[in-house]
Every structure is written in C-alpha cells, then in structure tokens.
C-alpha cells in the first residue's frame, strides 16, 4: 500500500507523516500540490503545517490547489484519505468534509497533550483501538475549533461520523482545548474512508517522542488495501 503525502507550500509536518507511515511499515512518497494525478497511490495523506502561511484562513488557499481534484476523486472512490491538523483544515475548506475550523476560543496557537476519545473502531483508521479508549495525543494549532451548523451537526451525530472527541485525561473539566462544538476532534465521511482530525497521531509513534498512542492508527492502515 503506497501513500501520497501531499506537500503544499508551507506544509511542515510532511516529514513527520512520512516517519509515522514508514514506522508502521507503509510506503510513502511526497507529492507536490501542483500534480494533477495520484496514479500509483493507494491513499492520500494531507499533513499538518501552515500551507500558504495559513493566510486568509488556515487551509483556505491550499484547498484550491490542482492536486485537490485528485484527492476529491480518492474520497469519492472510497480510497483512504487522511488530513491531520492543517490537512483537516484543507479538507473542510475543499468541502470534502463538512464544517469548518475556526480560531481557537483562546485565540492563540496551543501546543500540548490532550485526551482524545475513540468514538468508533470500525474504520481502518481506528480498528486497532478500543471503542471509548482515551488516547494521549499532542495538538498544535491556532484554528481548530470545529464548527458546523445545527443541521450538519445533527447529521454527523446521527450517522456516527464523529471519530474522535476531546476527553478528560484525568478528570479535568477544561479538556476541550479550542472550543470545538460537541468536543469534536476528528470526523469521517459517510463512506468512512476520509478522516480529518486536529490532534497529531504522527507525533506519538515512538517512546522517544514521549508516547505511542498514535501508532495503532498507522498500523491499522497496513492491512487495509483498497482500490
């Protein structure tokens, strides 16, 4: 299974994504945002960073890149697509996932470890987690407040499209780091092949980096071969 790591100008977690994918035994290659074909790839990974400096709105300008047509095709064809942090922002800006990511309520970039609860484990991304397991994952973003109108939220909840939710690690009440509605940290599409999430699983794949709670996400992709 070969993953395309989409590089936009300003992406900066591209190498971290590659590190995590390869650590899990997956093949990965960088694809520049001007490419118009993802032929030969099985999955697309949109890494974190500050594409186009996050100018205007995080992910807004990258969402208009040529390569996004191919990412959209992947999404429609049921191939796995993952967007982490800025990658999630790009996916919502491109309309591939619903909703939007607005400025954190605290109005500043926040880098710390948070609790993230797994809401469903029937997806390739979460198959190796327990349902309701609380993961310890780093976040690092300034615009991560998940927002969608009431109708969309109801649909997300009704169809069980919320994959990850912020949750207390040890009973704290201020566990939601950015003011996301319904504590949403990550969502998927109806088909369950597109994942967008603000926390960084790729930063938690080795004890040396202080945690391994992100690793099962990548290992879970290993056996899932599509397309």
């Amino acid at each position, binding site marked *: 299974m070969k993953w395309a790591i989409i590089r936009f100008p300003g992406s900066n977690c591209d190498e*971290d994504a590659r590190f995590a994918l390869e650590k899990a035994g997956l093949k990965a290659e960088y694809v520049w945002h001007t490419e118009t074909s993802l032929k030969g790839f099985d999955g697309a990974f949109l890494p974190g960073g*500050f594409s186009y400096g996050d100018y205007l709105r995080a992910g807004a300008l990258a969402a208009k890149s040529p390569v996004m047509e191919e990412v959209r095709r992947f999404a429609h064809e049921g191939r796995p697509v993952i967007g982490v942090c800025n990658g999630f922002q790009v996916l919502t800006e491109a309309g591939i996932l619903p909703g939007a990511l607005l400025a954190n309520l605290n109005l500043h*970039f926040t880098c710390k470890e948070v609790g993230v609860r797994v809401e469903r484990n029937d997806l390739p991304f979460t198959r190796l987690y327990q349902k309701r397991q609380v993961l310890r994952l780093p976040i690092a973003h300034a615009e991560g407040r998940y927002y969608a109108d009431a109708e969309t939220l109801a649909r997300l909840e009704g169809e069980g499209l919320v994959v990850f939710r912020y949750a207390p690690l040890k009973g704290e009440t201020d566990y939601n780091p950015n003011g996301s509605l319904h504590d949403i940290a990550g969502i998927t599409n109806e088909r369950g092949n597109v994942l967008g999430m603000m926390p960084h699983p790729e930063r938690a*794949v080795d004890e040396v980096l202080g945690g391994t709670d992100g690793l099962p996400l990548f290992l879970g992709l290993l056996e899932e071969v599509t397309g």
Partner: protein
Amino acid sequence: METLAQEIGIPEEEYREITQRLGREPNRVELFLFKVMWSEHCAYKNSRPLLKQLPKEGEAVLQGPGENAGVVRIGEGWAVAFKIESHNHPSAVEPFQGAATGVGGIIRDIMSMGARPIALLDSLRFGPLGDARSRYLLKGVVSGIAHYGNAIGVPTVGGDLYFHEGYRENPLVNAMCLGLLREEHLRRSQASLGRPIYYAGAKTGRDGIGGAAFASRELSEDKEEDRPAVQVGDPFLGKLLMEATLEAIEKDLVEGVQDMGAAGLTSSLSELAFKSGLGVELDLDRVPTRERNMGPIELLLSESQERMVLVPKEGRERELEEVFRKWGLDCVPVARTIPERVFRVLFRGEVVAEVPTEALAEAPTYVRIGREDPEIRRLREMPLPPLAANPQEILPQLLASPNLASREAIYERYDHQVGTRTTLVPGKGDAAVLWVKGTHLGIATKVDQNPRYSRLHPRLGAMHALAEACRNVSVVGAKPLAYTDGLNLGSPETPEGYFELQETLAGLREASEALGVPVVSGNVSLYNESGGRRIPPTAMVGVVGVLDIRRRAEMGFRRPGEVILLLGEEKGELGGSEVLYLLSGLEAGHPPRLDLEQEKRVQEAIRELIALGLTRTAHDLAEGGLLAALAEMTFPYGLGATVEVRTRGSEPPSGHLALLFGEAPSRILFTVDKEHLKETTFRLEEMGLPYRVLGETGGHTLTVLTPDGVLEWEVEELLAAWKRPLREVLDGQA
C-alpha cells in the same frame, strides 16, 4: 560630504580614517556603506579586541566564530550548527514583528551553514511584570516568536525569561537556533573567482533601511514618523526559501551561501568577497524590487526579510535557478566575484561606489578604559538586612514571583514538537533534548543568564551564566560541547559600560577555560539603554551538548519510594537572590561564589550517574534554592516528597532562610532506586564529592522536616501558585 557624515552620525575621526583608506573623499553612496558597515552591530568596534580572549578550540569544533554560525561534531557524521542573535531594538519598536523577524534572521544564519534548522530557543528580558508596557511587550514578543517559528516549522524547545527593573525601557529579545547537518554538507560564506552571485528569496523594499546602524544607537527620542519602516516577517516565504536553499545544498549545486541580515546586500556581498580574498561587482539594476524608484542607497541598505545570496558551483547555474523556480522564488544573478579586492556597485550602468573590501570589513576598533560604577560596588558590598519570615508562607510566594513562575503559558504557544525530534519538551527537563532520528544521538540545549548576579558582579555573573547553562545540559545527561553567547550590554563609550563589557568577557573566558567548553558563535548588542541607564550586563549563554538518548534524565519525580539525594554543598547564599528580593525588595549583596573546578566535577558526576543508569531524575538548584527546586520536581507528575534539612546549631533566622531558599551553584538534586543507593553513594565517595541523602519521593505533599518544625504543602497548591502569574498575563486581556 563631511557635513553629511556628521548628519548621519559618523564621528569626525572615523570620517578622516575613511578618507585616508580611500585616498580620497567618499561619495554619498560610499559614505552610507561605511556608515552601516562600521556600525557597532556589523563591525564589533568595541567588542572585537575583547572577544579575542575567548577560548575557541575544542575537539568537537568544526567551525568556530566568524561564520554565520558555529558548528560542532556530535558523532556518526552528524554535526550541529548553532548561534544566538539579538533583535532588541526592533522588538522595542514593534514587539510582534521585531521578534518574528529576529527568529527568521537566526534561522537563515543556520541555513547558510548547510544545516536544517531543527530547534529554536528564546531568551527574553523585560521590565517588571507589573508594568503595563512590559506586559504588552511580553505578549507581542511571544506572539511574534510563535507566529514565525510555528509557521516555518522549526520547534521552539526552550529559552529563558527574566523580569528586571533594568530592562523597563529596553527589552531584550534574543533567539537561538540549532541546525542539523551531515559534516560533508557544511557550507561557508565563500566564493571562487569569476563566479556569479545569485540573489534568492523575497523582493527588496524600503523596509528597515539603516536598521543595522540604528540597532546600535541609543534609543532615540525621535518622533514616530522618523522611525525606519518596520520590517515584516513572512514565515511562509521563509519556509519556501529554507526548503529551496537546503535542496540546492543537498544537490551540491552551491559552493557558498550567505544570508542577508543586517545591512542587507552591502554586508552580505562585501563580507563574502572579503572572506574569499576577492572583490565583487554588484549590479543594482538586477535586484528584484517590490517598490518603485528605489535609489542605490535604499537598495544597498534595505533589510527586507527572507533573502539569501548563493554562489552556484560552476555549470550548475541552471539547476539552481530551477530549484528556486519550483519553490516559486526569485533567484537571479546580481553580482560576480572579481580579482580586484573592491566592492563595486553599478546603478543604471554607472559605477556609484567602489571601495576596497578590506576598508569596509575592518572597521577601526577601540580599546577604552573601564571603571566600575561605584553604586554597583556599594550594592554588592552592602551588609544585608536581617530577614525574618515564615518559610511556610515564603515558598508559594517565591514560586509565584515572575522570575520563578511557570513558563507554561509561553511555551504552550510555541509548537515545540514539529519535526518529531523533541524528546524532552519544555517543562520536563532543565534542557531540551532533540533526537537525531536513525541514531541514538541526542542533542541537549539550554540558554541561561541571571541579570541580578550579572548586575552586581559582571564577571561572576557571566561565569554563572555559562556554568548554569552547562549544568542544565549536564543534568539531562549530556556532555556540553560548546556555546554561543548573546552579549547585550549598555554603551561601551562610558567607563562604567566598558568596564561591564570587559568584565563580562573576562568571566566568560575564565569559565570557558575551566569548564573546557569553547565558544563557537555569538552576537553583540551594545548601547542597550534609555534615558542614560545601562541595562544589567547580560551575557545570554546558549549551550549545546550531546548524549545517548537511551540514557537521559528528566526533572520530575516519577516513582514513589525513590531516594532523593543532594549532590554538592548543603548551603545557600542570600546575595543577589530571589528570596532577598521578595522579602526586602533589594538586589544587593555578593552573588554566590562559584568554584569552577567543583562545578565541573559535579557536572561530570551527574552525567556519569545518568550514563550508568543509576538515576533518571535530576534537577539543578537555581533561583529560589533548595525548596524551589524540590517543588519544581514535584510538578511534572504531581508526585510529592518528604525530606529533612539540617540547620547548623544556633544559626540566625537569615541563615535558616539561606539554607532553604538561598542560592548557590554546583548543586544538583536527583533520585535513585533504593537498590541503587549503595552503588551511587559509593561512586560519589570515590569521586570525593559532597552529597547527602535528603529523603524520599511519594505522596501528594512536599514535606520538609526542619529542626524548627515541619513545613508542608499540597503539591496542587504550590502548582497553582506557580502557574498563575504568567497564565494571568498571557491568557488575560490586559
């Protein structure tokens, strides 16, 4: 011309020197070239003779001072390039952009060596936290650092921060950057004869004209309109420039690289030529611009950000242009190296300046006579008032004093993990540790300096700065290899200011020699004063060390039932201490004495214990002394401790406080498993070092048994007191 020279602040004797070196009067353009190149910032006129004394050699040193950054070998073919840089004045004018562009600038210095920037540290000094302007500056500076560092994708992994009356009108904002490279990728600012020199990156505008000269002048009373245009940083473009430059180096397309920092094109090209023993001919008409009608002086002096110069290897010009085109950046030849050793500038087809490179590069230096400020001596020698206070109440107050309080509210705003190399994040250890992926190598780094010690005793203060930065690196288990120094002082043109500069360098030399740690890079920022008051002499010392990441220590207590030991003397002093300031408002007395030989041995000992796997928890004692250090060890994992302290017989109350809260170097707290206690004490005795078993980890309280009774605090309560002050300021609105 002479009147113009006067107007732009070139001293008469320097003007004469210029005419003599040229053998004629300079023209207008040339005069400005001298103005910027002979500024203190570019020329080190006052500091160069003194900097010469610092030890610069060491086994690990690949590149010492003189290049864009120093470089040390860390093993397995890897090397680390690092340097610190000040951006004080721009940050005082516009804290957000000043700090942001400071970060961008130091990152480009590291790139110029062929290294990938992997970590940033920030060393900040402001006036009292209670002051509205200090809070405004702090918030702006922190946001600016976060803005640039986070977006460009270089993690900010550490730093240090002090509040002190002496920085009220003159904050200090220094940024340090570390880069990782393969030894064979090391590049320098050099070119061979007849090579084209390419300009790459952002277009040139009128920003920051005269900044270099300006940075070195006393903050003027000028009206806002007279201020030079603020330089705005663009981390997005910076990121593209970084990737393109590194790709060009990786592909072996360039023989020389130089960033454009202070004094822009003038400094980067004339110095590149000078270092190469050549001259350079610059054609200003080829410089990409973003504003219309820019004149030669503006083009030569602009400090627009995100620009580099590169010298392609012969025959690789097209490939170089191709790399930059892919990243969407300008990359055009603007100059060429020539055999005549001159800096020749063409504008609209005419030569508008032609000056020997040596004349520009080698500004006159000054050696002056220093004299200690008698007021400082009085403060240092003054007998301290007797202190009496209840230690039970002091500890939470001390932990909440701005100089000790938790920095979490700051480092949480910095992406300290991007790059997946950070193995010891801020708040978990005394130094940050970065992992060289694919190896077991770790790089430890910390920047440190205590303004109280340095103000009271500039020489000793500088020694403490290096000793503490090295100690911070040692307590995580790393061997200090070399350091970079950010010298921030007042005007050297007064005897008192010059004295402080002399003494600071003397202290650095002494500590550097004794600890066996050489300097490989640094920065000098003088004239830091306002309204005639010098800032405390501030030598920020950034140390880099290397370790095996399988054997590293953190500072937090993790397992209950471990034995807590104190390595070093069980003593503390009140001179220049935080507790003295807290209780009396005084900054006085003699700062703690420092026995460098003992310091070295204590550091070696803790490194050995960590390397042997005997301890995984260690923390040095700094501001706030023994009890503050113990409290800090309970915070990361919320695990308490019980210890017993000894007071010697009939001590006065001040002596008691000195033991609990007094400060002294060469002291480290660490823990061992009970089963390792014997081996540990055996080794310490073998090394002949003083130590004492203080107590044990466990519980939810910090409990201290003293001859006068039991002191006890809930860890949670201390933690809350410690976190509150900076949280309130940074997360609040005012």
